[in-house]
């Protein structure tokens, strides 16, 4: 059966979820196509466990939301679920989030929308324009299906549709590195002071030849649930021996295998070295390694790192980017670039639009920005905002209107 909808959203990560929910709230008939069996993308499948970019950068004591609408709603629901509020890290406020809560919240959000259909286990494999409408080919368990739509939102994270429709796209020569996040349970206690000693034990493990040097990319964070930690292992992405290419199955496969190998080794090593870790075990593997940056759209305008640094504002901005540029071009931790005077930057609507197609919008970590700016806008708080904007724009367009940034800001703020 061929489904016919107003708006098709490709990919249900933080951006696609926001886009699908907001488009359906405008009355559009929406289909969300997602290859996993749950929503949330990196925030669930890859166990990324904090929402960054939700709040304005500031030294004021209280965290202040940067964008109204879906990001604020998501923050409220997550706080209600975890019981944890934003945590101040220097001038940055981050909201702890738990992937298991994220999955459930996303389920509730989509269930509440009667004009939204979610189709899981559906991998989009082709897109083309036919007689003024979009034809979307997908594959599910060996069968191929088709969805027709008036408007498309690409929230795939990897700009998967760009090559199919012959649209401009790019991959930066030196990408942000990937990371492997996994769950740990059975650690008796994890006081803050202990982190330093654990770091020392890992170096001792490397010196003794028990652990590989890749363990230097590891850090731990309590999940907020009793006895549970997340380990995050920054990897070079070159484990297969070739240069890092997040779109290449051979490189991705080596990344997954290496993530699990190093993580298992570390937990085994700490079980021996630290009495508090005697009963520790890996309790959860991610569905996939975490990818920070891959293929991006080259849209109508391209937001640059220099504009983020200056805190540029635009007439047609649809959201504010507030996270500083967090560069992770190696496995040695973040290098930060803050905007002058902690200013927020406007994201123009045209970063979500592509040349030649008025009925196509993009959202999330693959919008039209340069490599440096992507280091700011990739965070989930900002992805909720660009997703929200793409969803609103798509619904307006499908309804025969012309999306304008001012009307979108008005709807998001109401």
């Amino acid at each position, binding site marked *: 059966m061929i489904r016919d909808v107003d708006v098709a959203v490709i990919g249900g990560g933080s951006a696609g979820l926001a886009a699908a929910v907001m488009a359906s709230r405008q009355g559009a008939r929406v289909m969300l196509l997602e290859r996993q069996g749950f929503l949330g993308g990196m925030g669930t499948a890859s166990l990324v466990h904090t929402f960054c970019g939700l709040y304005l950068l500031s030294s004021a004591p209280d965290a202040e939301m940067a964008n109204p609408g879906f990001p604020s709603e998501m923050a409220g629901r997550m706080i209600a679920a975890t019981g944890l509020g934003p945590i101040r890290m220097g001038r940055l406020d981050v909201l702890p989030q738990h992937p298991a809560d994220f999955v459930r919240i996303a389920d509730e959000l989509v269930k509440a929308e009667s004009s939204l259909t979610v189709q899981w286990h559906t991998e989009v494999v082709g897109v083309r324009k036919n007689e003024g409408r979009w034809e979307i080919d997908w594959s599910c368990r060996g069968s191929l299906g088709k969805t027709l739509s008036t408007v498309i939102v690409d929230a795939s994270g990897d700009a998967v549709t760009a090559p199919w429709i012959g649209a401009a796209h790019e991959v930066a020569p030196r990408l942000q590195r990937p990371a492997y996040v996994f769950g740990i349970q059975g650690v008796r206690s994890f006081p803050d002071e202990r982190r*330093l*000693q654990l*770091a*020392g034990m890992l170096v001792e493990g490397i010196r003794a030849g028990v652990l590989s040097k890749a363990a*230097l990319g590891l850090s731990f964070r309590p999940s907020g649930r009793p006895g549970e930690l997340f380990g995050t292992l920054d990897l070079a992405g070159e484990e297969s021996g070739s240069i890092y290419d997040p779109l290449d199955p051979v490189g991705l496969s080596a990344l997954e295998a290496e993530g699990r190998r190093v993580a298992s080794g570390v937990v085994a090593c700490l079980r021996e070295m630290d009495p508090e870790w005697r009963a520790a075990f890996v309790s959860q593997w991610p569905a996939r390694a975490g990818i920070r940056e891959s293929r991006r759209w080259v849209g109508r305008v391209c937001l640059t790192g220099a504009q983020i640094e200056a805190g540029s504002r635009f007439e047609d901005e649809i959201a504010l980017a507030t996270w500083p540029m967090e560069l992770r071009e190696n496995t040695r931790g973040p290098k930060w670039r803050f905007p002058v005077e902690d200013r927020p930057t406007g994201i123009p609507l045209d970063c979500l639009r592509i040349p030649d197609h008025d009925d196509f919008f993009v959202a999330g970590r693959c919008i039209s920005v340069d490599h440096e700016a992507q280091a700011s806008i990739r965070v989930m708080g900002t992805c909720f905002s660009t997703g929200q904007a793409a969803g609103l724009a798509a619904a307006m367009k499908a309804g025969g209107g012309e999306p304008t940034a001012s009307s979108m800001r008005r709807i998001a703020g109401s």
Partner: protein
Amino acid sequence: MSEKVDGITVIGWLRSEEILMLEEGFSVQDDLFLAGLDSMAVMQLVVAAEERFGVQLQAVDLTKENLGTAESLAALIDEHRA
């Protein structure tokens, strides 16, 4: 006998190894943890200290007191060189 390691040397070294991005005017008594020293940076620091100063810092050495400032870190490294 090698020269005594001081806080200024440590600041220059942390910068050049890109372990921490310390602002202009960062002093030997300023808080390294506030400047971003986290567990991952500590691991790099331990590895880099072995290469640069020939010292093998142990897990027990890695306390808030020892790592808190460039001055205290210099003293720790010095102690291990003795």
